[in-house]
């Protein structure tokens, strides 16, 4: 399941709900990744734009991959401003046993970084600045520059 929230995530509440869901579904392994905004230089917050139609497709493709291995994925992400020392991203893998979950969490989180249609900005003195140097081109970028 994919969940989007305005502003920072209520990590404890989401974690508790996911954990209880996994217990009811009889999954033996539950692995989470939580991304927290670090204090760096003058950054007050990070800010995010999300393009939901393609994010949903990207997530559903991953859900199918997980399903083929008997696993299930959850993800929560913020839209808009997320202050330092709060969280913008949670991902989780549920599986009957540990091995599948351990492998899948790495692949899922890394592909998220590379291809999920989300744009990050540093918020400094109340202004958003695109984090261009930390961003990744989606596979197939540059198509419209070709003659």
């Amino acid at each position, binding site marked *: 399941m994919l969940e989007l929230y305005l502003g920072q995530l209520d990590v404890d509440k989401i974690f508790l709900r996911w954990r209880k869901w996994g217990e009811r579904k009889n999954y033996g392994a539950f692995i989470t990744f939580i991304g927290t905004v670090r204090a760096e230089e003058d950054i007050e917050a990070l800010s995010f734009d999300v393009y939901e139609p393609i994010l949903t497709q990207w997530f559903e493709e991953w859900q199918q991959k997980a399903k083929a291995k008997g696993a299930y994925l959850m993800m929560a992400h913020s839209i808009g401003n997320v202050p330092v020392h709060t969280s913008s991203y949670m991902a989780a893998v549920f599986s009957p046993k540990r091995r599948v979950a351990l492998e899948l969490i790495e692949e899922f989180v890394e592909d998220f970084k590379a291809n999920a249609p989300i744009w990050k900005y540093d918020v400094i003195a109340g202004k958003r600045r695109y984090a261009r140097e930390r961003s990744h081109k989606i596979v197939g970028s540059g*198509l*419209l520059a*070709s003659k």
Partner: protein
Amino acid sequence: MVQVEFLGPIGKKPILLEVKNLKDVAKELQKDKELQKWLNECAVAVNDRLVQSLDVELKEGDKVTLLPPVCGG
């Protein structure tokens, strides 16, 4: 008409183009100096599906979307 949308940091309002395929969209967008720095870096979706080739025919009402480099989390 085909609508072209520019996501995230590009910060440009959608435009309407009279085009028949994705190659025509590329030609039109390459004329815009403001956009040139983005074209090399953007992925392209047609009706919210990412495409890997310019050989895509377009019809009235189709939507082309430019996706600049991403960084979630």
